[in-house]
């Protein structure tokens, strides 16, 4: 069992639940696909490298010696930041998990919290475009001490995935 969290804090709830998604879906025989998150990480670390290079030049050289390089770096930083923003908003679109089953069926999981509402908003979508939106009140899966009840969360997710599959056959 993981560490207890402050279950009144939305950021902590979000983090704990998002981080337990891969474990839960692994139990349901999904294999995680890391394509999206790897893309995001590579853009992100490219930004960090550009900023670090600019910082290094700033420390090592006088301002006037490296103005040209700094202009290039700041330009690259701006373009990469816009790319990163675009990627999170229009490519990733809040998808926290992508799973692939052995038969090749894909599952996309988006999660979110509305401001001030302790309900985990989950949106499941499979490869055929069938969608299911559900909300999970967090007090159903966290106990009073702030521990995530992995088993309850797993059962809830399992039920929702089943619902998604039956919705497909309708």
């Amino acid at each position, binding site marked *: 069992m993981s560490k207890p969290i402050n279950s009144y804090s939305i950021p902590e709830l979000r983090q704990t639940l998002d981080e337990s998604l891969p474990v839960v879906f692994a139990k349901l025989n999904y294999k995680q696909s890391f394509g999206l998150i*790897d893309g995001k990480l590579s853009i*992100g670390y490219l930004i960090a490298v550009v900023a670090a290079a600019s910082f290094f030049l700033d420390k090592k050289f006088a301002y006037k010696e490296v*103005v040209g390089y700094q202009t290039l770096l*700041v330009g690259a930083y701006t373009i990469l930041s816009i790319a990163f923003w675009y990627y999170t908003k229009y490519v990733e679109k809040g998808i926290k998990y992508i799973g692939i089953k052995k038969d090749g069926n894909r599952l996309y999981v988006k999660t979110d919290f509305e401001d001030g509402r302790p309900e985990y908003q989950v949106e499941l979508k499979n490869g055929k475009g069938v969608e299911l939106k559900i909300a999970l009140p967090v007090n159903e899966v966290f106990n009073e001490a702030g521990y995530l009840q992995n088993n309850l969360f797993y059962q809830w997710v399992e039920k929702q995935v089943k619902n998604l599959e039956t919705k497909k056959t309708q």
Partner: protein
Amino acid sequence: MNLRFELTRFLNLCFVLSSAFMFWKGLSLATNSHSPIVVVLSGSMEPAFQRGDVLFLWNRNQRSRVGDVVIYEVEGKSIPIVHRVMREHHSEKNNKQLLLTKGDNNAGNDIPLYANKNIYLNKQSDIVGTVKGYIPQIGYITIWISENKYAKFAMMGLLGLSSLMSNE
């Protein structure tokens, strides 16, 4: 622990640090000044500027005019000085301009402050920027922190506490 989660968290930390730095860098490139925002440290420009005023600089002008308030740095001293241009001489042929400055609240001009026994400042190489705007007093906190060691500790403590308290 999952490596990708750790990398994402570390990346968020990188973003916090790098965005502040790159904003500063972008501002300094836009204004062509290596230090586009400065805090007034002395009372030599009173009553125009008090200690603790925050000044916004611009350094894309070709020449300074008499009456402009400029920031300059003297070779070998890292503290920027905020004073007013009293006299200027410039050449029409090349871009050279020489300046004499004085603090409004000082009795004499700045010649004793200049490096290498110069009797002028060079606009192209010595001037950090011309004052284009200011916010009164809010920079006093930086003076307070740099001049009072207890304030420094208190600031460090607060930063440490806030990083412990928050999780995002």
